Each structure stands twice: as C-alpha cells, then as structure tokens.
C-alpha cells in the first residue's frame, strides 16, 4: 500500500469540504505544530554547502563552478521530468534535489567532463531517488549513488585529478595524485595544514576541511543534524585509523590524516547525516556510524580503492531498514518478564 500523499489528500479533502461549510474547522490533535518544514531544512543545508562550493571555486576555478551548476541543474531537471511523466506533484523547489546536485558535484574531480556530470546527476535522481517514489523513500544516498555509478562507469576520468591553482605552486594541469592515492600507492604523506585548508588535489569539495566544517557546524547550530552522526563517524575513523597507526606508524598514516584527507569530512557532515538514508533510532545510529567509519578506514588502508567513505556509507545505507526495525528503543515502562 502506498503513501496517500499530498495530492490525494488535497483533492479528496477539497471536494469533501463541500458547498455548505460553516466557519469552524475540525481536525485531530495536536492542533498547532512547530515551524519546521522540509523546504526550510533543505534550503538551510544548501546554505551550509556554500562555503564548500566557494572553496572549490577558489581552488579549482571556473570549472568547479561549471560542474556545480551542471549537476544542480540536471538534478532539478531530472526530478521535474520524472515527476511530470509520473503525473506527481512537482517538488523540485523543496531543495533536496539541489543538495543532491551540489554534493554530487563536490565529490567529482574538477576535470570531470560535463556529460559525465549530467549522467551522474540523472542516475542519482531518476534511479536513486524517483524510482523509489521520490523524497523520503530512497534507500541509498542519491548523491553517493550517482558518484558510485560514475566511479564504475568512468573509473579513469573520475580518478584523474588536477592540482589546485594557488599562488606559488606550479600548475600541474594534467594530473596529480590525491593525498590518499599518494599515501596508498606511493607511500607519501601530505602535510596536515594543506589538507586543512584544502590546498591539495582531489574532488572539488572534499579538499577544504575548514569550509566543510563551517557548513557542518552551521547545520549543527540550526539543529538539523544529530551530533552523533558526524562525530561518531569521524571518531570511529580516528579510532580504527589510530589502531593501524599505532601498530605500524611507518606504514599507516595518523588518525588526523584520515579525518582531513579525502571525503571524510564531507561524508561525515553532509552524507552520513542525510536523514532519509540514516537510521532513526539512537542505537541504530551508533551502529551505523561506528561500522561505517571502521569500514571506510579499512577500505582506505587495505582495499583496492583509495577512498572508502563513499562505499562505507552506501554499504551501511543498505542496512538502515534492518537497523530501524531491530534497534527500536525500549518502550517506556516495558518490562521483560510479564508477571500477572
């Protein structure tokens, strides 16, 4: 049985209101609600993503801006298109598709072709979101799904990086390695300060820790994200990364490196926290982030791919329904042994 959502209610209620209505309204309690709304939340997240977008434009120039625009536009268009052909109310302006587009763009390398960005956005929205019925029903994080699809579709293009253009550095436009790839394949470590500011090669929005933190903390301040999720995820990464580091400091990087490099920050603040695709129960949330963080580090250090954040989140997404079902909090006053 599907959700009888808005349009249903509206048309039926409107017709039922009939011609002879008096001036009293009846409804079921509670009668007044708080002022949150889905578009409000989503637009705040869009705002929170601006620092990261700005940083990517600063470091990677015009192309970064182009990619963000292409992704956002194609996400919105895809959503509009799907909702039109399904004859569903068009909800493009609630902002969730904008977030998906921005986040997808931020996970792409600056040199990624425009056509690929379009394809990824299309997949993210149409297959990753609308095929499940749109906002709220998707199982996997659409942006990450789009990224994973691109990773599998154009693995070479998506791992071709350019250096950031900053004063004093020679521009190496052809290709450069990301800090994680340097660590993994060449055993070189990037200075933490560069990572923090974002002065490294990598996906557009993943590079600048400070810009992401700014947005993330703003969201936390607004109360739209649960502190458990980002901190648990990062904490778990730090602990597992730290364990490796303590075991063999020469071979494995420090926990701070894990937190600052790659998609850890963007993932922890904006993707782990995606409400739709994370668990709703406290215990479920803990399991989600702890296992996710650990898995990200393990994939980074031992796996075939340099980046584990995306896969760890997607993988844990698939467990969310089970987690929600089986980690329900204990009902107030519930007693185990029922005595009569």
């Amino acid at each position, binding site marked *: 049985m599907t959700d009888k959502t808005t349009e249903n209610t509206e048309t039926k209620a409107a017709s039922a209101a009939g011609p002879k209505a008096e001036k009293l309204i009846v409804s079921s309690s509670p009668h007044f609600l708080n002022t949150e709304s889905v578009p409000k939340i989503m637009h705040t997240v869009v705002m929170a993503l601006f620092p990261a977008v700005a940083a990517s434009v600063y470091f990677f120039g015009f192309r970064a801006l182009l990619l963000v625009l292409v992704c956002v536009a194609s996400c919105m268009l895809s959503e509009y298109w799907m909702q039109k052909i399904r004859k569903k109310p068009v909800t493009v302006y609630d902002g969730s598709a904008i977030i998906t587009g921005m986040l997808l763009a931020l996970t792409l390398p600056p040199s990624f072709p425009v056509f690929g960005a379009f394809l990824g956005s299309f997949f993210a929205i149409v297959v990753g979101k609308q095929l499940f019925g749109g906002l709220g029903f998707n199982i996997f994080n659409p942006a990450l799904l789009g990224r994973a699809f691109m990773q599998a579709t154009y693995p*070479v293009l998506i791992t071709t990086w350019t250096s950031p253009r900053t004063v004093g550095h020679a521009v190496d436009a052809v290709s450069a390695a990301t800090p994680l790839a340097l660590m993994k394949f*060449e055993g070189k470590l990037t200075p933490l300060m560069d990572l923090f500011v974002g002065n490294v090669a990598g996906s557009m929005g993943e590079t600048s820790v400070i810009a992401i933190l700014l947005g993330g903390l703003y969201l936390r301040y607004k109360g739209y994200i649960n502190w458990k999720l980002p901190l648990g995820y990062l904490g778990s990464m730090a602990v597992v990364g730290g364990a490796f580091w303590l075991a063999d400091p020469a071979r494995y990087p420090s926990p701070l490196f894990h937190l600052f490099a790659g998609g850890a920050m963007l993932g922890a603040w904006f993707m782990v926290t995606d409400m739709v695709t994370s668990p709703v129960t406290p215990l479920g949330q803990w399991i989600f982030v702890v296992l996710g963080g650990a898995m990200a580090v393990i994939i980074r250090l031992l796996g*075939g791919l340099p980046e584990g954040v995306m896969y760890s989140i997607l993988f844990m997404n698939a467990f969310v329904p089970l987690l929600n079902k089986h980690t329900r909090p204990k009902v107030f006053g519930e007693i185990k042994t029922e005595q009569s």
Partner: protein
Amino acid sequence: MNSFAKMFLNLTVVGVVSGVILAGAFHVFDPLIQINKEKELKESIFVVLPEAKDYKVLEKTVGKEKLTVYEGIDASGQPVGIAFKADGGGFQGNIGVMVGLNLDYLKLKGIKILDQVETPGLGNRISEPAFEDQFKNIEITPKVEYIKNRKPEKPNQIQAITGATISSNAVVTNINNAVARVLKTFPKDEMIKMGEQAKPASAESKEHQK
C-alpha cells in the same frame, strides 16, 4: 513393482547410463580439449619467445611444489630463451602471465597475459599488446618496476596503466616473484643441461597421441 525397487532401478539405471554416455563423450572430446590447451600453451610460448619454433618441458620438484619451465628452441633446436608461468592475485582475481626470459637471465623477452578477470576497460588493458610489449627487453635486476603517469626512465621500468595501478602492480609483482623463483630453482648451467636431455614437445605429443 514396489516403490523401493522402482527408485532403486531408476537411479541406478540413470546413473549407469549417464556414466557410460559421459565416458564415451569424454573419449571423443578429451583429445580435442587437450589439443586446444596445448595449442594455447604453445602459442603463448611463441609469443613471449618470438624466435622459438618448438619448446621443451623442464620440470623440477622442490619440496611439495612442482616447477615447470619451457625452453624455447628455434628451428635448429638451439635454445632461444625460457618461458614460465607467473600467477598471483590482481585487483579482482588471479592473473596468470607467461613470461619469456633471455637465456642470459638478464632481460625479459616478452610477456603474455594468459588469464585475468580484471575490470574490462581498466585492469583488463594489461592484456593489450600496448602494455605487454612494454616488457620486451626490460631488465630484471634489481627488479622490474612500474611508474605512474610518466614515461619510463630506467631500463627496468614500465609505465602503469592509468586507473589500473593495482593491476599493473600485480603483473609486475608476479613477474618478479616468478623470476626470482626460477632463478633460484633453475640455475643457468643446470638449465642448459636439462635442456639437452629433454625432448621437444612436438615430438612428445606425437608420442602421446599414439
């Protein structure tokens, strides 16, 4: 007929009949399959040892393991190099490489990827001649190495395939491991001696056919 007898008969008869049919079929097809396998082996040896026209099989058992190398010989029966298989894990699964080594044990003569299950379009480009050909005349001391995104600079270097560093690395590592093992097990002079004693494969297989 009671049901047990029926069951018994059913299964036994089907078992015997299928056994017989399969044995018959095996008898017909197996030689063909063997020929295919041999042809594949021969072809790969001839690829990595281009001058070879025939080869000899040299075997030696060290501990539990049996090592096999193939000595390529030219039309006149003179050895032109040795070939051997190098196996090891790649990105997805096993990568098997046929490696051709110079008789002087200094340089590779060529390689051929026999089997691999790497990602099509990425890792599986190790099977492309462009990659395999890089290994011609590569020095094996101290070790074969790969470098990324640049033209090789040293005589023991090849360039890794972009986006498939792991597969490239696996090929190189496999080769290094196998070369080291062959060098240890089949010292140069012993090899020559063994080669003189062995018969060419073509002769052997003919015998076998009879």
